């Protein structure tokens, strides 16, 4: 993975930079000790690492603005960081950058059930947003797998999705407004507790811009009343193809489950060995969850089960109570951890049209043999978002490169069949150099123009999203 050569002139200014930062931040909010900056050298994509020049942990929007003004002034790149759970390297530093972490911005600022929104500081974790309203019967819908730890700031940067977005949408569909600081320190308020934009939908383009347009410090989020209940079924098939057809038939029948999760055999086996959820050993496993009143759940599940039966499942298990529901979900939720027991893995995130599922899985299987690397697939089947986990050994020289090459092939395949490189994790650095596969130079130019407008010097998270050769003329 190529990163821009760090600017020696900036690195030489470290002492000056730190002393200026200390003018606006308390000592404990500036991390410049070489031993300490190392903890900020990567996010959850640990394959790529680089300690930053320093890291700062501001405690208010004004402190964020003060930091950005200094960095803007001195021409120092800034890489914003939420909880550092990005699987795409969104918070990967460069040696000449300042990491700006929002982990200390965790307050709930306002909760309003009549208007159904919550306003929080952006470092607050996704799950703790729900935690703040659940006693009153509400929840925040987007539920990325890392929701326990990931910050709202990162969710906004990556436009995070989750297992339940088939019904509730992703971050952008649940975000009403932000307070954002531009690189030059300008504090903007965009949107609010009302719906939709009055002019251009700037909020829409900020969400998913991977921290390249500004640092979001506060967010107004839509909260929803908790459904009366939810119940999953587990369906096992002896063929990926049949499982794919089953999903499509269910959707065509007019049922809209809140989640349709798919696991393939390697993943089922790993999960069973690790979490012992009692999954059947088969080629494809579907977990389908529906919501509503008990009667509504029964009605929806009746339709789903009837369709599932038509395709001869090897197993069809409906949760009779909460405990069984938890067990059904247990394996799926342990899937990443389970794969991690086998070896290091790289988690991909391409999306494909659902109809292409059997073909894509077959091709991934072939690539796995070609490269000699194991792959397990976890898949949000309702929306076509795949998570192939490529297993490799980080301590074996050359394995990472092989894994990267195979990952690239899989993502090219996703684009080829009409899908995209990333469904919910973001481009980061991981998919950056593959952007040419999905976009023409003109397509990329149109996106980069937006960054030109928000961050004319290209100092915010500059080496991400766009292929380095495309952004070369813009980055300093």
């Amino acid at each position, binding site marked *: 993975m190529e990163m821009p050569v760090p600017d020696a002139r900036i690195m030489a200014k470290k002492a000056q930079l730190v002393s200026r930062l200390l003018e606006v931040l308390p000592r*404990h909010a500036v*991390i410049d*000790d070489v*031993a*300490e900056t*190392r*903890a*900020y*050298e*990567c*996010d*959850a994509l*640990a*394959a790529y690492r680089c300690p930053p020049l320093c*890291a700062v*942990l501001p405690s208010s929007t004004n402190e964020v603005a003060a930091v950005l003004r200094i960095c803007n002034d001195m021409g120092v790149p800034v890489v914003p960081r939420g*909880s*550092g*759970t990005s699987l795409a390297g969104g918070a990967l530093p460069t040696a000449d950058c300042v990491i700006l*972490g929002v*982990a*200390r911005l*965790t307050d709930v600022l306002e909760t309003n059930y009549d208007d159904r929104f919550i306003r929080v500081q952006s*470092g607050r*974790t996704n*799950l703790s947003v729900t935690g703040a309203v659940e006693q009153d019967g509400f929840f925040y819908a987007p539920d990325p797998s*890392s929701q*326990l*730890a*990931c910050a709202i700031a990162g969710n906004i940067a990556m436009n995070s999705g989750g297992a339940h977005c088939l019904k509730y949408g992703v971050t952008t569909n649940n975000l009403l407004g932000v307070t954002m600081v531009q690189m030059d320190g300008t504090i903007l308020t965009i949107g609010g507790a009302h719906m939709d934009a009055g002019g251009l939908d700037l909020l829409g383009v900020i969400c998913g811009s991977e921290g390249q347009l500004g640092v979001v410090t506060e967010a107004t989020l839509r909260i929803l009343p908790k459904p009366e209940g939810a119940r999953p079924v587990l369906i096992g098939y002896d063929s990926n193809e049949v499982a794919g057809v089953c999903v499509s038939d269910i959707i065509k029948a007019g049922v809209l489950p809140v989640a349709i999760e798919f696991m393939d055999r390697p993943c089922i086996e790993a999960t069973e060995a*690790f979490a012992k959820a009692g999954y059947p050993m088969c080629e494809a496993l579907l977990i389908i969850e529906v919501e509503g009143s008990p009667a509504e759940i029964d009605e929806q599940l009746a339709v789903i089960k009837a369709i599932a039966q038509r395709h001869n499942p090897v197993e069809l298990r409906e949760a009779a109570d909460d405990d069984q529901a938890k067990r059904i979900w247990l394996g799926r*939720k*342990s899937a*990443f*951890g389970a794969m*991690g*027991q086998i070896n*290091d*893995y790289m988690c991909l995130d391409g999306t494909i049209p659902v109809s292409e599922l059997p073909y894509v899985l077959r091709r991934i299987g072939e690539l796995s043999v070609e490269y000699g690397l194991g792959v397990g697939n976890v898949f949000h089947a309702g929306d076509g978002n795949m998570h192939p986990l490529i297993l490799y050994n*980080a*301590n074996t020289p050359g394995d990472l490169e092989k894994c990267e090459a195979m990952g690239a092939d899989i993502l090219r395949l996703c684009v080829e069949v009409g899908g995209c490189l990333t469904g919910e994790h973001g481009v980061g650095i991981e998919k950056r150099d593959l952007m040419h596969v999905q976009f023409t130079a003109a397509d990329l130019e149109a996106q980069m123009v937006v960054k030109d407008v928000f961050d004319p010097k290209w100092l915010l998270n500059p080496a991400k999203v766009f292929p380095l050769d495309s952004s070369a003329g813009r980055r300093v």
Partner: protein
Amino acid sequence: MQTHFTPAQLTDPATKTANDILRACVHCGFCTATCPTYQVLGDELDSPRGRIYLIKDMLENNRVPDATTVKHIDRCLSCLACMTTCPSGVHYMHLVDHARAYIEKNYKRPLSDRALRWVLAQILPYPTRFRVALLLAKMGRPFRGLVPDPRLRAMLDMAPRTIPPVSRNDHPQTFATAQKKMRVALMTGCAQKALNTDINDATIRLLTRFGAQVVVAKGAGCCGALTHHMGKETQSHRAAAANIRAWTQEMDAGGLDAIVINTSGCGTTVKDYGHMFRNDPLAADAARVSAIAMDVSEVLMKLDLPTGAARGTKVAYHAACSLQHGQQIKTYPKVLLKKAGFTVLEPADSHLCCGSAGTYNLMQPEISGQLKTRKIATIEALQPDIIAAGNIGCMMQIGSGTGVPIVHTVELLDWATGGPQPPALTAPGKRTPAVPILR
């Protein structure tokens, strides 16, 4: 996660273990969400993931620990919430224990630090010394303003107002039971014996009442946890070895169904003797001891306590980290209390540590104080009549900041099944709960 140990380094068993643990970590960051110090400080370096990174770097490079690395490792409570959270099964406890021992060996702490640690290691595990120290602290409290080190002030503050006399029950002996269902050894502990004798008394009454013959084994004493967490391996192993010998002897003589521990901090360590001694001649015996080490709530679940009538007494159950994370015992104490007729409530963020954590409240008073304040706020929000916990450390920590009386779970169970009312409920300075008279 990729590691960079040389084959030579990996020949050392401890390094090999550390490498295996580090390789399991995928750097996902889930652990940050439930780490108490990360909640308070918001710095990656004060999270498990950050500490793992610091440890990795230190070990890979055989580096003499630097002050910042030590600072962040020292700030770890060893509450092990991260282990409950970790989706990849990273054994953080063994890693941080190893790092602490490594730091103790290779890092020269400032004099005041060393002195403090030496004093704690020389006093806490020894009940008589500790009792004397508590008396001195009591006398010294009026002069607290003159004490320069906040940690020493914290110690003065933590010393209880009343110090109980020595309990005869804590001496080696056997307590009979009417219908013997099992024979168990009770670990009477060290600091607990000096701070609160009610817990062991209640435990013995309760166990014998329901069919367990209770032995206090000769030669058993401190479990070694306090020094273990300071990285003082020699000392902790010495204490542990004494216990292993004492209990093995008892197992070979009269047979033991369980070693009962009513201080969950100790329980976690005793259950880990097998790992601590894995490369030691005592390995087999240590494993035998760990295999039958049980928290008192585990033993009580086997003894089938009677169902009590509902009393309407609201008990806030505080889950000690060593119990919920260290030993993964989450429901038993609540099940037992509910069955005995108490209304059991659990505070928000019950996974977060109260800040006691062995000697942590003495060595890191600031962070510990913040965690205590949070914990008490969430408990008091429940408006409980009584707080129950399964670990003396938590009881001291929480008890020092609230007017709600705090007792050990076994004291309530004992009371509900015919024992005396826990003395703490009527202690001066505490709000006496409006509790209906129990039978």
